């Protein structure tokens, strides 16, 4: 299992980690990939996602999808979907938003609070865990864990 760990001491650090990941994604292609983002409220899942989506080429805001559940973006010919399932009471609710249509070879999905959609989501390729440092609360520990072959290829390229 390929795993990368980073410590970010500031939002600028977080941004440069996001840029590294974005560069590998652009090289290998975004289509068909699914990322789960794990971390407590306020850990910085949306902040990391904002920097990643902007580094992939989106000009403009990256708003929190908590209320809308999903915010769509277009990165060249790939549709990128940023999900936040925090407000889901029941995974069944995903059926009513047509969740199955979002996962395909021409889309990339970034999913916050994926555990709330258990059973109805595509399997992850990479899990991104973001933790707040208990001693220095501006510090963030970022952990990327490959959970599929495609995820392994991606993170192996990141290591070099």
């Amino acid at each position, binding site marked *: 299992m390929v795993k990368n760990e980073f410590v970010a001491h500031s939002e600028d650090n977080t941004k440069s980690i996001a840029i590294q990941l974005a560069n590998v994604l652009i090289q290998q292609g975004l289509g068909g990939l699914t990322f789960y983002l794990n971390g*407590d*409220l*306020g850990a*910085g899942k*949306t*902040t990391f996602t*904002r920097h990643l989506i902007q580094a992939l080429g989106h000009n403009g*805001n*990256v*708003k*929190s999808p*908590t*209320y*809308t*559940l*999903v915010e*769509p973006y277009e990165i060249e010919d790939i549709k990128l979907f940023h999900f936040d399932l*925090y*407000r889901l*009471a*029941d995974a*069944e*609710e995903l059926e*009513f*938003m*047509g969740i199955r*249509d979002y996962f395909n070879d021409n889309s990339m999905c970034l999913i916050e609070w994926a555990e709330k959609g258990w059973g109805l989501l595509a399997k992850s390729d990479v899990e991104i865990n973001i933790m*707040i440092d208990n001693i220095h*609360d501006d510090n963030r520990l970022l952990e990327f864990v490959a959970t599929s072959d495609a995820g392994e290829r991606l993170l192996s390229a990141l290591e070099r």
Partner: protein
Amino acid sequence: MKILGIETSCDETGVAIYDTDSGLLSHELYSQVKLHADYGGVVPELASRDHVRKIVPLIKRTIASAGLSSNEIDGVAFTRGPGLVGALLVGSSVGRSLAYAWGVPAVGVHHMEGHLLAPMLDDNPPPFPFIALLVSGGHSMIVDVQGIGQYTVLGESLDDAAGEAFDKTAKLLGLDYPGGPLLAKLAEKGQPGHYKFPRPMTDRPGLDMSFSGLKTFAANTIRACDGADQTKANIAYAFQDAVVDTLLIKCQRALKQTNQKRLVIAGGVSANKQLRATLQDLNRRKGIDVYYPAFEYCTDNGAMIAYAGAQRLLAGESEGLDTKAMPRWPLDSLQAI
């Protein structure tokens, strides 16, 4: 002209009938009604966004509670966007199909235009132009409203909506989600002077907002505190104070920049007492007239869609059978009427 309005852009299924001669005739939200009759006495617990099963019973009920029959409806308005594509498709396909079956015109409405025009449903509607502050769980924006379809977005949240920051900070304080109103109640017991939260993006010019950092600041403050009830109340007080103060600063800037004298506050957060009192004070201090839509038209509803659609149908707009849902739809791109 009697217009049926249908709102299904996100969680809520809302239907209403607006009469251009006599005003709102009926207005129903699925989350607030009991549809016993339609289900033969048993009301199944339907999930959020299950618009498909909710919409037809709700339309029937809305027409009945207006004392009308379907052949008295003169037009159909539905939310075309922005929102969740799956949810929008339900309202737009049902709305467009009903209009076709009834032989009446249909029009797709912009969800945010609905919110901006909601104060027009009031007995004392604001005259144009005005500045609108729209603050809810999903939106935070300041809009210059010159007339119907003449909107300039002056500023908006770059990340979390104001209401979302309230709800998430409430959760961090150990309250239920969504706990914005509970946090406001807790803040009433809080004392000033114990904590000072930042006022995001007020130290630079511009009307954009950012509330994500405030949530993280709250998380750090709560982690470092002693957890006592009074401490939590003090944190709630300081958090609410920061959000309200930030919104006040932005509204004042917008009014000054546009030289306008009227302010409309809409969206679920407009129910916040502290926000109301603070913005109302602009009347005393600066002679600004401050308006709020009735609370039931602040959150997502069909009435605002029926009203906005009626104005557009009156102006001669209508659309063909090839209706498209528009999950992304910039507010500035609308046509003036």
